[in-house]
């Protein structure tokens, strides 16, 4: 609907996320982590007895919120989503394989580390947890190095 700017400025989106983190602590004394929501969703599908139901609602909420912002903003557009890889000359199946493998490694790593960009990167660091600051510095540093390698040695870097 074009009611939102193309991209919310970082100095608005950042504090909003920060307030959501504080809000969930004030209401429920809980961190706002996305990978944990995935884990609880798996447990629910498997009918595991020690699942945390509200995290499954949280999981669904992320999807609904993303949809809402898209409807109010640019509108839902069915597309592949990896134009930069297509522009680099990669075929659609190849992009699918790259994204799938990347996501598997990411999910596995999130479970090993005990959190992801939200759980460790924002929520854990805000709790002043040494483990979260270490994890965040590690994944940020690794991601910058791997991106440097990808742009240096594959067509992703452009010509």
């Amino acid at each position, binding site marked *: 609907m074009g009611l939102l700017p193309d991209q919310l400025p*970082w*100095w608005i989106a*950042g*504090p909003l*996320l*920060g307030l*959501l*983190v*504080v809000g*969930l*602590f*004030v209401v*429920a*004394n809980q961190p706002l982590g*996305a*990978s944990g929501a995935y*884990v609880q969703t798996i447990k629910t599908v498997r009918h595991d007895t020690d699942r*945390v*139901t509200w995290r499954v609602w*949280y*999981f*669904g909420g992320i*999807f609904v*919120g*993303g949809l*809402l*912002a898209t409807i109010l903003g640019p509108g*839902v*557009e*069915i597309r*592949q989503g990896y134009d*930069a890889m297509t522009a680099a000359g990669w075929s659609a199946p190849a992009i*699918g394989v790259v*994204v*799938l493998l*990347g*996501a*598997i490694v*990411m*999910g*596995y*790593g*999130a479970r090993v*580390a*005990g959190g*992801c960009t*939200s759980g460790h990167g*924002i929520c854990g*660091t*805000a*709790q*002043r*947890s*040494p483990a979260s600051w*270490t*994890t965040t510095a590690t*994944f*940020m*540093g*690794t991601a910058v190095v791997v991106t440097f390698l990808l742009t240096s040695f594959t067509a992703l870097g452009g010509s």
Partner: protein
Amino acid sequence: MPKQMNLVGGLFGAGFGFVLAAGKLHDYDTIHNTLRLTDFYVFGLMGLAIGVSLPLLWILERRGTETRYGGRLSLARSKVERHHITGGILFGAGWSIAGTCPAPALAMLASGATYGAIAVVGLFIGLWLRDRQLIAASQAINEGDGERSTLPGTKTLGAR
């Protein structure tokens, strides 16, 4: 946790997903350009999110704030262990390659990007694979030692 907590979880999830999509964090280019250090959007956003929440949580904790559903506000300050480094390296590599992370991948799919579904499925597979290992490891411990029911730390991992 009371039943209303489900609604609270849904609302906070929606708020989170909304901000992520409005900030285009579900867009490959936003993540990729930040990680190749040509655009500092994500760094600025995360920095301010922490800059706002860290001092507020600190103050609330010091004042001994009673939370609505979770008792007295308590922050977790875990000490660094090896798995934080190894997990961080794997997560960072996957983040760079797929150009998205767990919550933005859901928002990406919601916005109509079909390959967001591949990222979400991949995340489920990766998380599930590690879960299988943890369960197998805790069962191996059970066979040797009847008192321990889970691996130390597996519960807190699941709660993240």
